[in-house]
């Protein structure tokens, strides 16, 4: 699908790449149906809380150094401020740099919803520019501004000359999409629209764009890429506007999570010819090797990469083999964003753990370039199948599944989800850190973490004995797809 950077509105994942949030069946069926184009998502007549795409969108942007985020909406929408505060005050310090990024809420009230507040917003933008002299300004909408039809695009255009730094409207109406990951695309779109510049003439570089969340493995990855004469540019945590303006010059773009990096990677490729590394991701052994080899192929560095792979294999594979014996045959249920679910499923399979059910918080039928996500393709090609469903974090479905299958472990990348598994007495592994399963070393650590979690269940078992979950017995007896219905 062509990327259109002339409009500040970006189509949702549902409309752009046919993403769905409702499906219950098997992995094979899900993949076959998406390949032949017959997959239709379902909606739910009953649902529990989902998540706002603004947290993903503004969370990404507020990690950029020295910018201003203006969230035009009622006070409640400004909760992203807490995360923004952390991203701009703590994350830079961890790396030894500074950021003066600020997050401003406009505290829209009832009067504003009736009479509009475009004038007030204009003043807010100018005041923010004066107070903080940010390097760029992102002006976000909310559900309320969206419904009353506040024209933030026009205001941004009107003040553009006066503020004198890049300024862009970011459309974060929460009701726009069931898929909070649309927020990642919205952030990318804003960066591509106003910050990224065309490559400068004659610039030679060994840089590779690395889209990730918190650059928590930064030193380690810089060290690794040195072996291949590559210099990673981590996006967007602690990025500067200057750095971002030149990402069109890099040798390639890769990412830690396909859901996170897909839009930026494809857009940079389509618009500036920067190759986007499309492979299964770095989780586990096969993933890590496939990913490195693809980088080697794209950037012409296959030789040093093969050498690195052989060296590392010698160190880690025997250790991983050893721990595998203790994990063989254990069962797992997992619930994550699709950028991780089908990757982590592959790793669990590598470690000898049987996935009995995998939930993806949403599912992209195809990526921006029209392909089925590589992680799915890998599982299919290797004849790995299990029950699978797509649910935007629907906790009651997770609990129904855990109750029925009583797995040895539940893995999730969302802390709120592990809470309920633990109350159910299921050992839960919170795959919090994006690099938790990265490469050989972290795959080994991951295996050890799983072993720790399932070997000592004191807290889970003691807590579950004394806790009563809110769900009715009736619900536990129903099929998981009880509340799914065809989208009308």
């Amino acid at each position: 699908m062509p990327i259109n950077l002339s409009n500040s509105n970006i189509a949702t994942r549902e409309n752009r790449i046919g993403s769905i949030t409702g499906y219950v069946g098997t992995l094979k069926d899900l993949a076959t149906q998406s390949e032949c184009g017959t997959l239709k998502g379902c909606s739910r007549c009953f649902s529990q809380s989902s998540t706002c795409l603004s947290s993903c969108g503004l969370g990404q942007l507020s990690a950029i150094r020295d910018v201003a985020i203006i969230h035009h909406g009622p006070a409640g929408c400004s909760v992203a401020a807490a995360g923004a505060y952390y991203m701009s005050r703590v994350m830079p310090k961890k790396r030894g740099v500074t950021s003066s990024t600020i997050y401003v809420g406009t505290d829209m009230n009832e009067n504003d919803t009736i009479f509009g507040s475009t004038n007030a917003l204009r003043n807010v933008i100018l005041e923010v520019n004066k107070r903080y002299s940010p390097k760029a300004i992102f002006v976000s909408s909310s559900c309320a501004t969206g419904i009353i039809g506040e024209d933030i695009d026009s205001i941004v255009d009107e003040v553009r000359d006066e503020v004198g730094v890049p300024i862009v409207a970011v459309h974060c109406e929460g009701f726009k999409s069931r898929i909070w990951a649309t927020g990642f695309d919205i952030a990318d779109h804003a960066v591509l629209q106003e910050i990224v510049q065309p490559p400068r003439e004659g610039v030679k570089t060994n840089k590779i764009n690395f889209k990730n969340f918190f650059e928590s493995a930064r030193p380690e990855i810089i060290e690794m890429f040195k072996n291949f004469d590559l210099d990673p540019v981590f996006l967007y945590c602690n990025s500067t506007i200057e750095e971002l303006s030149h990402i069109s010059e890099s040798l390639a773009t890769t990412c830690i999570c396909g859901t996170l990096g897909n839009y930026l990677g494809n857009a940079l490729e389509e618009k500036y010819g920067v190759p986007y590394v499309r492979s299964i991701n770095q989780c586990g052994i096969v993933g890590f090797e496939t990913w490195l080899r693809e980088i080697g192929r794209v950037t012409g560095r296959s030789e040093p990469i093969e050498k690195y792979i052989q060296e590392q294999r010698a160190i880690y594979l025997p250790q991983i083999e050893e721990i595998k014996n203790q994990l063989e045959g254990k069962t797992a249920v997992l619930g994550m964003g699709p950028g991780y679910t089908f990757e982590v499923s592959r790793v669990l399979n590598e470690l000898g753990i049987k996935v009995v059910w995998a939930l993806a918080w949403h599912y992209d039928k195809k990526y921006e370039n029209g392909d089925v996500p590589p992680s799915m393709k890998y599982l299919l090609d290797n004849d790995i199948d299990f029950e699978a469903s797509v649910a935007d974090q629907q906790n009651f479905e997770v609990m129904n599944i855990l109750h029925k299958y009583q797995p040895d472990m539940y893995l999730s990348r969302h802390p709120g989800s592990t809470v309920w598994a633990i109350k159910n007495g299921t050992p839960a592994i919170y795959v919090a850190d994006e690099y938790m399963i990265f490469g050989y070393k972290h795959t080994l650590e991951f295996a050890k973490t799983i072993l720790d979690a399932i070997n000592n269940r004191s807290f889970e078992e003691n807590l579950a004995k004394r806790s009563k979950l809110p769900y009715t017995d009736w619900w536990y007896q129903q099929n998981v797809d009880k509340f799914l219905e065809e989208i009308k």
Partner: protein
Amino acid sequence: MSNVTEFPKGGCVLAGINSVLGAINRVCPIYHSGPGCCMQTTASDAGQSGHKSSCFVSAVSIPSSNMLEKEVVFGGTNKLRTTIQGAIDIIDADAYFVLTGCTAGIIGDDIASVTNEFAEKGIEIYPIETPGFTGDSNLGYETVWNTFLDKVIEKDVPKDEKLVNIFGIIPYHDPFWSGTLEEIDRILSRLGLRVNTFFTKGQGIEDIKKSSAAALNIIVNPWLFKGPAAKYESKFGVPSLRIPGLFVGATDTSKFVRSVGEALHLDKDLVEKVIADEEKYVYNYLGQAIGVLSWKRFAVIADANNAVGFTRYLANDYSFTPVLVIVSEPIFRPEDKETIIKEISDLEYAKPPKILFLTDQYEINSAIREEEEEITLIVGSSNDREIALEKDSQFILGAFPMSERLIFNRTYAGYRGSLTFTEDIYDNN
């Protein structure tokens, strides 16, 4: 009106409503809102007040209609109807409350009618039609109680002269809420009273229904809960005693105990005996660690209730010098500001501090940065740590938003809480 607020604290009215409902045992909120409101409201209050979240249902387990464009255009009442039915089917709750987000509020979905369809079938379910944009989480606290007063609390419940209701401490917003309520409960129980905290001891909707039996409402807050208090009195004949700020330490807590004693005509000897006993307990400990803490000139940045409590304890009980107090929650009524100023200024021992009402972090930081008098201790929220570091002043994380401490039953309130507060000043948490 739209203005510039750097790093805003707290949530919308929906967040306050959700916080209160989450603290009542076996009560299930149902959101009629966009897909993000549940997580946003949970994150904005519970998520930033010491990392506790509701035991029964919270965040990902709260039913929500997750309104999308289709509902915005065609209305969302059908989706709400099936969401309510699903909630009743799968969540085993004693009562359900239907809440509205901005989206439902602006498009004008009639949630009361839909809710009523279920109420007519005998389901205990109530609508709260207050969309997010109408105010902040403080207003949410009052909104829930107004709903209870209008629709839940029963009339003609036999009076119980030993029963009191406690108000003014917002659960999952004030980081110390449960510890504070437990300390109040402990002290008042010693006077032979039965205490409705509503949010501890597993209290539930039945306790709320029967709260009209109380002999007294005790409001521990300088400004909150005026409307509901008046309604309690006019509709159910329950009078109110306002304690105009949290009590921390022996002086103010004893004053609190005496005012409750007088209001309920309790046996004076008993009241004085309890006070003497509690004060002895506190001073026995304080006397064992004299000179352990160095003397401080302090600033407090907190909501009104805690700002009053912290300032008065440190200045009036512990000989520290108050320099600057910033009330960092929005206070709109001038008479409320006056009450707060009076409570903070009216000190027996110390010279009153400078008092400011600021919610914008930029202005808070400027005020601390530009303060000419020396400040060696700052009690504030997570957002204030940075300016404390810049000032090279000791910092105690004691106010909302609080993202770097886990708080179960810790409190700085009352007799025992003041000891914890003093310990923390030494430990420099």
